[in-house]
Every structure is written in C-alpha cells, then in structure tokens.
C-alpha cells in the first residue's frame, strides 16, 4: 500500500489510515523530544489538523507543495518516510536534509516537497514560483502552499495571491486555520476572519471547509485543485483546532480547559473512525489493527532515527554553495593563514 494519500475506491478508510499515521508520527515526535532525541524544542505538532490529509489526497504525482513550521502531517501524507523525517527532526545525517534543516526546514524534492519554512508566510511565494515554472514550461502540475492562519496577516501572502491570479497560475493556497497563532486566537489577529472573502477580493476562488470532516476536505480540495489546474488559483481555508501548545514548551495557559475540550471534540481522526463504523465500512477490529500497524511503523521509525548519528563536523561547509563552486573558508583555516604568515 502506497504511503502517498490519494483517491481510491475506499477513500475514507485510506484517509483514516493517513490521519492515524500522522497522529502516531506526531506522538513519536513528542516522545523523541522527551527522550532528548530531537534537535531542540522548536517542534510544532499537527495533532488536530489531520484533516489536511484530504487536501493531500486531492493532489497528484508531480504536484508540488511548500509547508510552514507545522508541516509534518502534510509531508507524511504526501509520501514522507517517517524514519528519515524523524532523523531530520533529530538533526541526524540520515535525515532528509542531512541534519542541516530540522523540523522547520524539512524538504524532499523527490516527492515535490519544496520545503517547510520557519518564516511565517515565507514559503508561500515559492509555490507560486513553482506554478510559474509549470505554466511557462507547459507542465501539467499544481503547486500547493500550506500555511497557518497566522500567515493571513503577512503582507507577502497578498502579493503572492495577486500575482497568482494575475498570471492565472496553477496554485492552491491552503490555510490551515487552527484558530491560533501561538497564544493569539484568530479573532485577536484579524479584524475579519472570513478569509475566503479576502481571496475573492484578490481574484482567487475562495473556499472554506471544516477540517474535522476529512471527506468534505477531500471533496472541496479536489474541486479547488481542479480549478487551480485549469489556471484559476484558489484559497482553501480548513478550520481545525490546535490540540496542544504552540511548540513543545507551550502549555497554552492563554486558553481555558473548556475551550480546549470543545476544540478537541472536533477530532478528524475520531470523526472518521466513527463514520467508518457507522457506515459499516470497517469493523472496530480492523481499525484497531490499522492503528496498531501505524503505531508499530512509527515506533520502528523512532528507534531507527534515534540510532542515527549527527552529521560529521566537516559537513558544516557542504551545501552553502553548489558542490563545484568555491566554498566558504573555515575560520580555523583563515586564522591559520593569518597567524602563520608572520611566524
């Protein structure tokens, strides 16, 4: 079974599996942090946002995407290997980026992942640029920019949307609206939270979907992708709830238990499970088995990642420039040049 989310003849079950894998993965990231196996604590979990699997399933091979600092789920759903992802999150040489980038800069050109970004909004225009390449070169592909609701307040988004619409580029903007930018609830950050209206005002097709209903996400995203593929870019806003703190150290003191309980009630994984059972598309035991399989997969990935080593010191100077280009001179060499010259 492929690990890229895609439309199938058992769509909900597949989506459920993808979402369960995301959740299991993110739980392992948390565990990895506790076991001090991560590179730092700048770890942003996408638990509660698994409905994004629906968007990923609406994408096709050859489509590309950029993500934000909370992008593990999207990458996993688009084919990321959990072991290499965790290795990267741990700053290990075997990671996707050779341990140079970490959680916030994970990327994989192989599956069209043009990169996570630690600058809010920073990766958005890159997806537009990819779409420009596709249009210019006559390639049938769409690029998708994933970002949070916080990025709706970054000016660069509007510059990007305008250019996308002006040039009729095959790009879809996806706002994962988890209600919070760190400790700031969206209504304290935006005067008007009807983001679809913003998109329409810039000439894009604006759509909104409830992220706890992954089937609806798939359906809406599929429509948005079709529109984008035909040259009308769109913004798709997916509402969800950030189940935990902003990053690993944040206990979310700025929101109360009642709100959290209500938010976590909109659980896309639980909702899909209930629906599968309800519709008799799966039995409890099947789903339990599937859950266990995901857990095992992620446990194995974690064990593997924890066993990996950090890159060697010499790796410091690789990849600043292309391999055949003049590299930066290490400081020790420069000091040696200076201090040896006068001996």
């Amino acid at each position: 079974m492929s690990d890229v989310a895609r439309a199938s003849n058992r769509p909900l079950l597949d989506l459920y599996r993808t979402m369960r894998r995301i959740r299991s993965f993110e739980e392992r990231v948390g565990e990895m942090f506790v076991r001090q196996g991560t590179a730092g604590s700048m770890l942003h979990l996408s638990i509660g946002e698994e409905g994004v699997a629906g968007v990923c399933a609406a994408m096709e091979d050859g489509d590309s995407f950029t993500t934000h600092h909370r992008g593990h789920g999207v990458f996993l759903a688009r084919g990321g290997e959990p072991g290499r992802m965790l290795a990267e999150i741990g700053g290990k040489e075997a990671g996707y980026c050779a341990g140079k980038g970490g959680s916030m800069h994970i990327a994989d050109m192989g599956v069209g992942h043009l990169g996570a970004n630690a600058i809010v909004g920073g990766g958005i225009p890159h997806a537009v640029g990819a779409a420009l390449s596709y249009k210019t070169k006559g390639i049938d592909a769409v690029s998708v920019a994933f970002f949070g609701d916080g990025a709706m307040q970054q000016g660069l988004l509007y510059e990007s949307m305008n250019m996308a619409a002006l040039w009729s580029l095959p790009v879809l903007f996806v706002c994962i609206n988890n209600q919070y930018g760190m400790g700031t609830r969206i209504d304290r950050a935006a005067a008007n939270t009807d983001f679809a209206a913003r998109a329409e005002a810039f000439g894009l097709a604006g759509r909104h979907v409830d992220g706890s209903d992954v089937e609806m996400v798939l359906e809406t995203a599929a429509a948005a992708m079709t529109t984008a593929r035909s040259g009308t870019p769109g913004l798709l806003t997916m509402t969800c709830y950030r189940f935990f703190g902003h990053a690993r150290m944040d206990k979310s003191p700025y929101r109360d238990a009642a709100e959290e309980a209500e938010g976590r009630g909109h659980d896309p994984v639980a909702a899909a499970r209930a629906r599968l059972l309800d519709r008799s598309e799966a039995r409890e035991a099947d789903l339990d088995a599937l859950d266990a399989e995901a857990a095992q997969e992620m446990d194995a990935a974690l064990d593997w990642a924890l066993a990996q080593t950090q890159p060697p010191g010499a790796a410091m100077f690789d990849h600043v420039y292309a391999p055949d280009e003049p590299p930066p001179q290490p400081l020790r060499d420069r000091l040696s040049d200076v201090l040896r010259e006068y001996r």
Partner: protein
Amino acid sequence: MTAAAQTATYREALREALADAMRADGDVIVMGEEVGLYGGAYGVTKDLIGEFGAARVLDTPISEAGIVGVAVGAAMTGLRPVAEIMYVDFAGLVMDQLGNQAAKIRYMFGGQTGVPMVLRTQGGTGRSAAAQHSQSLESWFAHVPGLRVVMPATVNDAYHLLRQALTKPDPVVFIEHKALYVSKGTLDKDKPDAPWGAPVLRRAGGDAVIVAYSRMVHEALAAAETLAERGVEAAVWDLRCLNPMDLDPILESVRACGRAAVVTESCLTGGFAAELSAQISEHCFDRLEEPVIRIAGEDVPIPVAPDLEAASIPTPGLIADAMAWLVSREAPAWA
C-alpha cells in the same frame, strides 16, 4: 554596588526595565507578537499586560513590517513605542521600515521630527533553532546611519541599556541574546555599568585585548580563564553599544599590549568584526605586534544539528587557542 542591588536573571532585568520605563513615562507602549497574554516568546514581557493594560501592551498580528511601520508613525506623534520583533532573523521583513524609514526620517525631513522608538529583538544560536531562528544580524543595523544599536551581555546592562534606550531621541535597535535570558547576575538599578556608548572592561590583562559583545563576552571571559592557566593574561572588553560607539578606551588598551582579537557570533565575512578590526588597525597601527585577528561565526547558515550548530560559532576553546597563538606563538592542534 548600592543598597538596591539584587540578583536577577537577564530576562527579569529586561522586564524590570520595561516596567519601570512604563511607570516613569506614560507614553511608553510595548507592541509585538505575543507580548501581551503570552508574556513574550521568551517571557520578557510577562504580566506587563496585567499592570499596564492592553492599550499599552499591544498584541499584534504576525505582521512584522506593519509592526515596525506603525511604531514609526506612533513615535512621530508622541508615543515612545517598544516594538518587539520576536527573532532578529525576521529583520529581512522590516529592514525597509527600519532602515529606510525610522533611521532616515529625521534627516530626510531636515530635523523636523525624530523617531524615538526602541526595536527589541533577540538573536544568536543555542537552541537548535536552525538557519532562520539563530542568526546574528547586528552588522546590517550597524551599517545604517541613523540607527543606534546596543547589545547587552550582562544583567545590569540588560536593565540600564534598555532604560537608557527609552530616553533616547532616535531609534535604537536593542538586541538580546536567547542564550542569556536565564543567565544570572547583579542588578543594581541605581548604578549602570557605564554611560551609554562606552565599553566596559570586564577583565583586565596585559598580554592581549579581546573585544566582544553580547554572549561572546562570556565566551571570551571563559577563554581568558583558560588562558590565565596557560600564563596568558587577556583583557576582555564588552563593547555594549555598536552605535554610538566609543572605542578610545579599547584602543588605549590595545596600544599598551600590541595584540588584539575581535570576537563575534555573527558570521565573519562583512560582519561588524571587520569594522572593529579595521578601526583598531587604523588607530593602533604602529603599536601592533601582530595583526588584529577576527574570531567569528563560520560563513554558513546555522545548521540545526546541535553539534554542528555549536561548532559554527566561536567557543571558549577556539578563542583560547587563537589567543595563545597570537600571544605566545604556540600553534594549536588544528592549525
């Protein structure tokens, strides 16, 4: 030390400075992402919103350029804003409002108005925060006429330089270091370490001079300890202010011993270490026994892997090795 002296962390000292300034001057407001309810990404503005209210402690959207631009306009019209940019790495989003607007308005408008604002931010490595959350970008700001730039290394400076910045008529970029927030020291609210603009000698020593600022002061001090064991006495100067900058006391000290090093976390090429090196060479030329050396960050983006990250900036060991070579002509193992 006066009776008012107490032990505090760098973070607490900064918070105290903001609170005291807000008590003393009703025009001081604090604005930025998460400065209110959250209390600041690094806790510096904790509970300020409780004492001063949401009108003076403004949580903003994630709109860095807008934040600085709004602060500029507010500063021109009677407020004294402290705008926080969560990471100095986001400078690239605000350099226009900072460098083309805040810095130049007094000049372009022929002195009609100033822009009395403080831009608080923090930088540096130490948290495996990777290439976009670990930089040292003071060199960009220090190259902009019209911007004052200060970088406190100690608890007392954290307090006093921020208080002083909040009395200045021109825009001040105030850069904290993320690895220093938990550092402890003596805070004496009645006694600044030195006047605005002046450097402070943090350790005396007659064999060589080390000039540093921000976190590198501590790495230099640690190196000096090791060096003392090896029989080399290095003076450690804390620059504190990059603009205004009074290099004269440091130059005196370099002239006396003929050997100097500049240490910055900022990457080497085109960084502020070059300015310091050039000025020292210009002014101490005939007293220098050896070239001024620069010990700085590697010319690489900051890698996330903790070992690589740590190796990308000067360590006490590297500083000590280089200083020993400079003074005693002992080449280190890596040479």
